[in-house]
């Protein structure tokens, strides 16, 4: 027990050390413990056996199997196999092995075997394999699956973890039957790693370490160079223009919710724009389509005014909610553009069909427009109708670019190095693929 306590304390210290590295300077121990407590309560409630997600019902899986058996069984009766010669030696399958199916959540066993000699020839005459299963070595075996000749693997699903299962493979050809030896007891279990996602794991580790490494490096005051991004250079000027003209700045953070990365990127830019607006005392408005984005945008703008030292200028109306329908929202915002003629429009975030409706109306109203999205299908419309467009990745780099914070710049650098490695991998992949060696491409196969 003291051992456990020591480990827990070490873990606590380690996590606090980590957090400090990420810039969270001081965390009172009680806060940390509270959060851990909340976390464990949440985890426990979710883990409760009758949780909302416990909808996997093994019986459903089992019930599907007999029907499979039935249909194939029917076919074999009317099958078009040529009549059997009298002299036939039907051999049983060899080396039948049953083991837990890998990389799954449990409840499945995979059975493999080696086909008997002459299976290919007999396959043409209708050779089939029946997979038999029993819960005890002496117990009754029941058919759980049926496969055509040429196959040598069967995935048995809907099993109970920890229960012993025994398998046999029966070769069937007309009225002939040959049963294989019985397997040893096999148990299904949940696994701890999806092996087929190894390539993603490697990418995640490489990517995260590079990003973290360059963040740490940037902290040690190594300067990071970032190429010019015209759209972002124009931000300050655009806010300044609105101030001079005494007109509104309209900031539209896209139409998606906070589960979309583009929205989060957009709010980071909104923070910057709001700080500038507060400093210059410009008139900012942020109409919203998504209610959660609305809530988050409010926090962002409020904090930005506070940081700029002008909390007195902050009004609740700056960030407002319009409606949840994409086109009703668009109608309202375009109407607002025509009536209030904002000097500057920011259209940054995730947009769909409304992109051109908003951008074109803004254009005809004579506003400077800075847009940004990673939606490939909407980029053409922004490019056509806006003065500046942040294309794809530029949108995500914006918060680093605008704030010039070393930590953020470091993460861009890490991301760039990953990109460099991917370019190398792509070139190598093309070369090897051309030489007829597909192993690099295979490593990138998604499963």
């Amino acid at each position: 027990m003291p051992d456990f306590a020591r480990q827990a304390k070490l873990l606590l210290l380690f996590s606090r050390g980590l957090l400090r590295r990420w810039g969270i300077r001081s965390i009172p121990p009680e806060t940390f413990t509270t959060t851990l407590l909340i976390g464990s309560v949440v985890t426990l409630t979710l883990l409760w056996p009758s949780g909302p997600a416990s909808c996997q019902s093994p019986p459903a899986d089992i019930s599907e199997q007999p029907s499979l058996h039935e249909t194939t069984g029917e076919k074999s009766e009317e099958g078009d196999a040529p009549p059997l010669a009298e002299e036939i030696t039907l051999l049983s399958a060899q080396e039948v092995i049953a083991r837990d199916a890998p990389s799954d959540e449990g409840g499945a066993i995979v059975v493999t075997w080696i086909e008997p000699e002459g299976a290919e020839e007999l396959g043409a005459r209708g050779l089939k394999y029946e997979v038999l299963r029993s819960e005890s070595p002496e117990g009754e075996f029941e058919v759980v699956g049926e496969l055509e000749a040429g196959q040598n693997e069967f995935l048995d699903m809907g099993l109970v973890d920890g229960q012993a299962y025994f398998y046999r493979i029966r070769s069937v050809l007309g009225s002939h039957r040959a049963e294989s030896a019985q397997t040893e007891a096999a148990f299904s279990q949940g696994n701890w790693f999806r092996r087929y996602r190894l390539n993603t794991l490697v990418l995640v580790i490489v990517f995260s370490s590079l990003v973290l490494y360059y963040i740490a490096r940037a902290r040690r005051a190594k300067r990071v160079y970032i190429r010019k991004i015209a759209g972002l250079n124009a931000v300050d000027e655009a806010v300044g223009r609105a101030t001079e003209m005494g007109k509104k700045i309209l900031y539209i953070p896209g139409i998606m919710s906070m589960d979309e990365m583009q929205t989060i990127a957009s709010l980071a830019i909104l923070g910057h724009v709001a700080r500038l607006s507060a400093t210059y005392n410009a008139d900012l408005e942020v109409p919203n389509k998504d209610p959660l984005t609305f809530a988050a945008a409010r926090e962002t703008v409020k904090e930005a005014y506070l940081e700029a030292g002008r909390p007195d200028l902050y009004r609740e109306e700056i960030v407002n909610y319009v409606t949840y329908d994409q086109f009703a929202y668009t109608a309202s915002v375009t109407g607002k553009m025509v009536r209030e003629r904002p000097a500057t429009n920011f259209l940054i975030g995730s947009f769909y069909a409304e992109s051109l409706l908003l951008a074109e109306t803004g254009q005809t109203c004579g506003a400077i427009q800075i847009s940004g999205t990673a939606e490939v299908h909407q980029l053409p419309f922004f490019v056509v109708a806006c003065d500046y467009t942040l294309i794809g990745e530029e949108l995500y780099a914006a918060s680093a670019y605008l704030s010039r914070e070393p930590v953020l710049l470091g993460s861009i650098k890490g991301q760039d190095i990953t990109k460099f490695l991917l370019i190398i991998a792509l070139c190598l992949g093309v070369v090897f693929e051309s030489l007829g060696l597909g192993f690099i491409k295979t490593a990138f196969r998604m499963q």
Partner: protein
Amino acid sequence: MRKQIPLLLTFLAGTIPIFAFFVPERHVGLVSTGLDSWLIIVYGFALLLGVVNVVQMNTNKIKRRASGWPYSIVLLAGLVIMGSFGLLGSFDVFGGIATRPDGSSTPFNWLYTNAFLPLQGTMFALLAFFMASASYRAFRARNVEATILLIAALIVMFGRIPFGEMVSKWFPIVTEWIMGKPNMAAQRGIMIGAALGAASMALRVILGIERSYLGIGKGE
């Protein structure tokens, strides 16, 4: 503490799906999908946040007799009518919100068909006009880039209509090629870049480096 709990919650919540992505073990999956179904409910609650704001803003406007206040009455009328049909519908008053078993419309459905859909459809249809004016203004051969944009657009527009095919059978073929090769290549490039950018952003959020969305400044 007020600033740190949210960051820690983000961190904890963010690691769950990443963990579940690699770990097939049933309980891990349960936590992840369970949290997902919770969040759908949380999102349902959020809509009311918007409704509250809309009602507040518009009643204020009407009270202050701000410019355009009569339109606020129209807006609130739409909200109250449709909203109450919808809410009453969830208690099966008026036969719910879809069509009744005999095929007749519930009030909610009638308004949806005869007001909501035409409004939505017309707003969407305005795009055809806007595409015409935007293309007229923007597709000018000002420099190399703009010229490439212009030519690609013209070829594809010709290639999509029978007239283009009559002029030359190559128009549809070249159109398909442009869509399938250079266009596809560029889109892939954008996607790969943007995906890396988004992943890096995600990492920054999980680590609490990017946090302006929570209204937590850098000072702490």
